């Protein structure tokens, strides 16, 4: 298999709150290969966005990376000096944040927001930066006439494309996409994803794609990791994880999406509510919602283990 681009080892991220410490990412290890799309699935509060934030070392108090290392091409991101970190951010790893449509500044034109990134990180002149901005807009399929538009003059899908253009500006090796299309209509979502994949073919970057939509990820990702309450609980090839989930949480998640073409059957989702991170039980975090919970689950935390080299699952019921 191709070389590893990013390696996360035993990462723990805590939120230090007045009423306790919430561990949002618990001992997670993952790697992203060159040119790979890794999907990270899970519902709100499972730690997937916190994990993404850590990769660019963007955390501020009350978040605290308490353990672990993040190696980008062998270099530990968490130990980088400010100058190296500045060069690493956006040059190597760029981020398309959740509700990216709103991450554009409403009072600054698209042109300025695009050139700002270019000029902050390279020595390009104003003229060159603008030419590059035009080129970037063309790459994502927006006419150059729109360069001097303001965000409110663009539709949601176009704003999303602008944000992707900004993420592409410095040709990073890794793009983190945190629910990039959740706020969009399905048709627009599909258009943007198709386009993203063409760009990926052209530029060869890797993607960390974060979403709660497992069926979408089964189509676009190479591998999928599933998180619950801060733990990585299942990791494997996308199609395998989706069509043959092993962990009961993944099974529940898969059956939370009614199929449009398959037989019509009553689905049950997952009973109960997501876990409160300040009130974690002893043993497996999923026990309260799990259909096959037994004695051992209430005592011991299950570890990630594998039957086959491509598949990791953290469950006592294997």
């Amino acid at each position, binding site marked *: 298999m191709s070389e590893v681009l990013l390696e996360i080892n035993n990462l723990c991220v805590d939120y230090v709150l007045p009423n306790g410490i919430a561990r949002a990412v618990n001992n997670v290890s993952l790697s992203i290969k060159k040119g790979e799309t890794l999907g990270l699935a899970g519902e*709100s509060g499972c730690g997937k966005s916190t994990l993404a934030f850590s990769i660019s070392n963007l955390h501020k108090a009350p978040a605290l990376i308490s353990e672990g290392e993040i190696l980008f091409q062998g270099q530990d991101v968490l130990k980088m000096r400010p100058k190296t970190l500045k060069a690493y951010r956006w040059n190597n790893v760029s981020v398309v944040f959740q509700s990216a449509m709103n991450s554009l500044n409403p009072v600054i034109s698209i042109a300025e927001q695009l050139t700002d990134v270019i000029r902050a990180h390279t020595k390009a002149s104003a003229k060159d930066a603008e030419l590059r901005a035009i080129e970037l807009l063309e790459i994502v399929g927006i006419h150059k006439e729109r360069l001097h538009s303001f965000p409110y003059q663009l539709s949601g899908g176009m704003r999303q494309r602008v944000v992707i253009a900004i993420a592409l500006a410095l040709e990073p090796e890794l793009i983190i996409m945190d629910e990039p299309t959740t706020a969009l209509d399905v048709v*627009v979502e599909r258009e943007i994803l*198709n386009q993203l994949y063409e760009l990926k073919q052209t530029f060869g970057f890797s993607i960390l794609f974060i979403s709660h*939509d497992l069926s979408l990820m089964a189509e676009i990702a190479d591998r999928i990791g599933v998180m619950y309450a801060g733990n990585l609980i299942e990791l494997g090839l996308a199609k395998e994880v989706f069509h043959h989930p092993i962990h009961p949480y993944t099974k529940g998640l898969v059956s*939370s999406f009614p*199929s*449009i073409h398959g037989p019509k059957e009553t689905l049950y*989702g997952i009973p109960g*509510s997501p876990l409160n991170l300040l009130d974690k039980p002893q043993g497996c975090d999923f026990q309260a919602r799990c259909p096959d919970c037994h004695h051992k689950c209430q005592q011991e935390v299950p570890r990630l283990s594998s039957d086959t080299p491509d598949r990791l699952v953290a469950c006592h019921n294997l």
Partner: protein
Amino acid sequence: MMNELNTPVLKASGLIKDFPIGSGNKASMRALNDISFELHKGQALAIVGESGSGKSTSARILSRIFEETAGLIEYKGIKLKDFIKKFGRLEYARQVQMVFQDPFGSLNPVHTIYHHIARPLLIHKRTDKQGVEQAVYDLLELVGLSPAYETSLKYPHQLSGGQRQRVAIARAIAVEPEVILADEPISMLDVSVRLGILNLMAELKDKRGISFMYITHDIATARYFAEKTAVMYLGHMVEWGDSDAVTQTPQHPYTQLLLSAVADSARKDTVEFKANTGEIPLWGKESKGCPFVSRCHKVIEPCHQTMPAIKEISSGHFIRCYQV
């Protein structure tokens, strides 16, 4: 009996809604153009479409938040205006309730859950002062929020999104409505709890005979929950009928596009995704033709001129398109 079965609970014919745009001038946009549908007892009608297609506007007109520009609404066989004249706005509000998308916004953060459910019971005189406490607990149990007493003492921020939406549903059914207009009731919730809410609504529909108008952008849940589905595009209804017919044998190019865009596990190989990335026009009073022209790949000359007439392509399956 027969008559009651056939009369729809709510019926809208030829609804039009214009909203003024800008200030001072007479420009307007047409959010709904010639919309007709029926809600039947104990059935759900799903309204599917992208943002700006007029889904929520339809529900808001039915709930009288907005007034229609033109068109006729009938409630239980009589004109809605006459019904309200005769029984009052409050009585109509009792019978036709809404559940909103955002359970974080639709509950008052400074009041307990008890207050939220007791209030409609008292306003609509569903129970007397002595009975209200028990009624609140019964409702909370019914929507799966047990233990009811403990839940009733909580404030909205102490509940998860799914639990809050259950409170919103409990509040809506407290007054024993005939119809619930549910505007994207699950789209803001955690994925794992969405089906719980849909199944709860299905139970209310089947066991209590409540009619639902289920507004969603997710056509897969429309098929899952609703007997009938109507697909809207830019204020127009383009295809409607039994949910299975619409989702399994879609005929309108927009419905086909929508379905090809949905990620689906049961689909084995990639389906060709055909879309023109044309811009969606702003629809006004003077606009003519089919609204989907800019993105359709099957356009012919008449499409630019007039909106196609309604065609029944199979029993109960309707479409507005020249190409079919």
